[in-house]
């Protein structure tokens, strides 16, 4: 590679410093590259970056936007924590978007089936139903993988498209509001108190989904640090043959990881439909399931990291909307921005395991 004047040298052990520094470096590089992109679009880069990263936290409308931050971060963190377990084990569930949709349909379906009954058990049952819906949808690729050795990446992704079709069928058919005058969309949960995912403190953005996300972070942390299953997950991802030597059953691990990530994604969908979204509608799926993949990697597949990464990513959503209204920045630019973040993260991650050496001549 004559072009590259550096050589990579494998470190004897992964660098602890870079493990923490790479996400920060990736965010900074994304700001620079994103700024360049915004400048290319004819926007003031500094103003755009400030609108995205500073204003939601400390700007004029921060009191409102900080709440929005939790609303966006909640589902991202909940889904990403689940995905990270599988990713660590080398099990690639990338169909969280589909599981999220199915969780919402199952959760909403349970509530709408008993409408307008008022009972304190309705909401807990909805949570279980949402988790079940996501779990069920994730079990399809899991079972196909364990029984038929089918690639879980492709199957889980194909099921996103199927779930989207089911969603539009739900919004226009079996879950449509009978009193909606023929418009697509289900009843709105804001008018169904027993099934509503309420904001716990006014203006905080804190709803049960955010609480669930925090619980998931703590549980995943304990699982990975202290529990045998967490160790097996890490081992299976790093050295599959060593995992078998250690007595790990790969099929069991696939079912566990897919199941947990599906259930969490389903739960996130249910909390979303009963809370911030309010109803099943054709455009209910907003891509959280895919953005959560970025969140999982940005958090280096570590639960605490994912918590922080989820907040950063929520910032780009909230700030991105601000930039869209205030500066006229296209919303697709934010999507590009998020994609760039993942690129930079994957790129600089090399520093954790390799040392960069400058060479005079040709490199290996």
């Amino acid at each position: 590679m004559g072009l590259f004047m550096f050589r990579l040298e494998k470190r004897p052990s992964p660098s602890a410093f870079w493990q923490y520094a790479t996400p920060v470096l990736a965010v900074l590089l994304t700001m620079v590259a994103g700024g360049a992109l915004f400048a290319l679009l004819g926007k003031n880069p500094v103003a755009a970056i400030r609108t995205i990263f500073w204003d939601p936290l400390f700007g004029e409308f921060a009191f409102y936007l900080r709440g929005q931050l939790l609303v966006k971060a909640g589902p991202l963190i909940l889904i990403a924590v689940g995905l990270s377990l599988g990713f660590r084990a080398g099990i690639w569930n990338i169909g969280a978007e589909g599981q999220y949709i199915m969780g919402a349909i199952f959760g909403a379906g349970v509530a709408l089936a008993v409408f307008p009954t008022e009972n304190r058990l309705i909401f807990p049952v909805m949570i279980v139903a949402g988790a079940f819906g996501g779990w069920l949808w994730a079990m399809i690729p899991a079972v196909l993988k364990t029984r038929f050795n089918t690639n879980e990446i492709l199957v889980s992704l194909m099921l996103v498209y199927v779930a989207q079709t089911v969603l539009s069928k739900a919004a226009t058919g079996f879950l449509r509001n009978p009193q909606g005058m023929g418009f697509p969309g289900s009843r709105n949960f804001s008018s169904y108190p027993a099934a509503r995912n309420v904001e716990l403190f006014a203006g905080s953005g804190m709803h049960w989904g955010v609480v669930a996300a925090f619980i998931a972070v703590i549980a995943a942390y304990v699982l990975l640090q202290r529990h045998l299953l967490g160790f097996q997950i890490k081992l299976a991802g790093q050295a599959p043959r060593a995992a078998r030597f250690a007595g790990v059953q790969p099929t069991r691990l696939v079912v566990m990881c897919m199941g947990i990530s599906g259930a969490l994604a389903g739960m996130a969908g249910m909390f979303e439909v009963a809370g911030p979204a309010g109803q099943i509608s054709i455009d209910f799926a907003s891509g959280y399931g895919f953005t959560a993949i970025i969140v999982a990697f940005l958090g280096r597949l570590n639960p605490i990291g994912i918590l922080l990464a989820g907040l950063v990513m929520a910032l780009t959503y909230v700030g991105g909307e601000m930039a869209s209204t205030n500066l006229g920045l296209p919303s697709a630019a934010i999507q590009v921005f998020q994609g760039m973040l993942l690129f930079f993260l994957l790129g600089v991650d090399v520093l954790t395991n390799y040392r960069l050496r400058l060479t005079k001549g040709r490199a290996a």
Partner: protein
Amino acid sequence: MDLSSINPAVLIASLMVASVPIMLAAIGELVVEKAGVLNLGVEGMMIMGAICGFIVAVNTGSPVAGFLGGAAGGAVLSLVFALLTQVLLANQVASGLALTLFGVGLSSLMGQGFVGIRPPLTSAVDLGPLADIPVLGHILFRHDPMVYIAIAVVAGVWAVLRFTRAGLILRAVGESHEAAHALGYKVTRIRIMAILFGGAMAGLGGAYLSLIRVPQWTDGITAGAGWIALAIVVFASWQPWRVLIGAYLFGGISVLQLNLQVAKVPIPPEYLSMSPYLITILVLVIMSSGKGRKALNAPAALGQNFHASR
């Protein structure tokens, strides 16, 4: 319901058209995977090809320039993947996903001024008397050039992999990068070239969508075609000529389900439109079950990164 509105000759003719994008993307990905690299970013590269091709074609008024632009767009995006996985040794699965997420976003950003515009028309190839053969002429010989180019690419890849030294080296790199390196082959360089070829083919397939198949620009125009292309490579057991069959199979399904929707068969249109995805899953199950890697013919080093340490 009116099944008589479905004309088999028209169906087969339109199947040949519908299969072009996935055929191109899949044959490109096949070459990439033969070199031992798993690029899951086909969807992203395709959609970049779709928008780049569209922009170039609209601005130049030339479909040919459009297709070249589409190939270039896909290749440029694949270069990012090559940089990440071959130079910076990033995880291939994650990098491929990143490519798709990024490509979908960027295409939407680039396409903002192009919604609702018609691209310049690509005319059919004039095959003279062949086109006048009854029935067959209509099915086989009245298509745009890309239909034939796609088939030629598949044939070319087959011939190169099977008969040439370049093809042998490519397969060797995909079987064992350690051994190829020990014999002095430039593993990284060969893989980067394969990735670029895969990107260009995916881009070409994407451009076909926006320039001929649809033909206009809409966000998310590929709608999973890139993922289906990945599934076709598995279906094809990494053999070029089976890519052709796979692409025709999937092209046929998508055309048929559209026809059935139009014919108002008593199946809800939602279920018809999810059929290509469900059939993809079914095909994956059939192809993967009960066989090991050897039977599936997958390159042994698929998805593994290579770093020449000493």
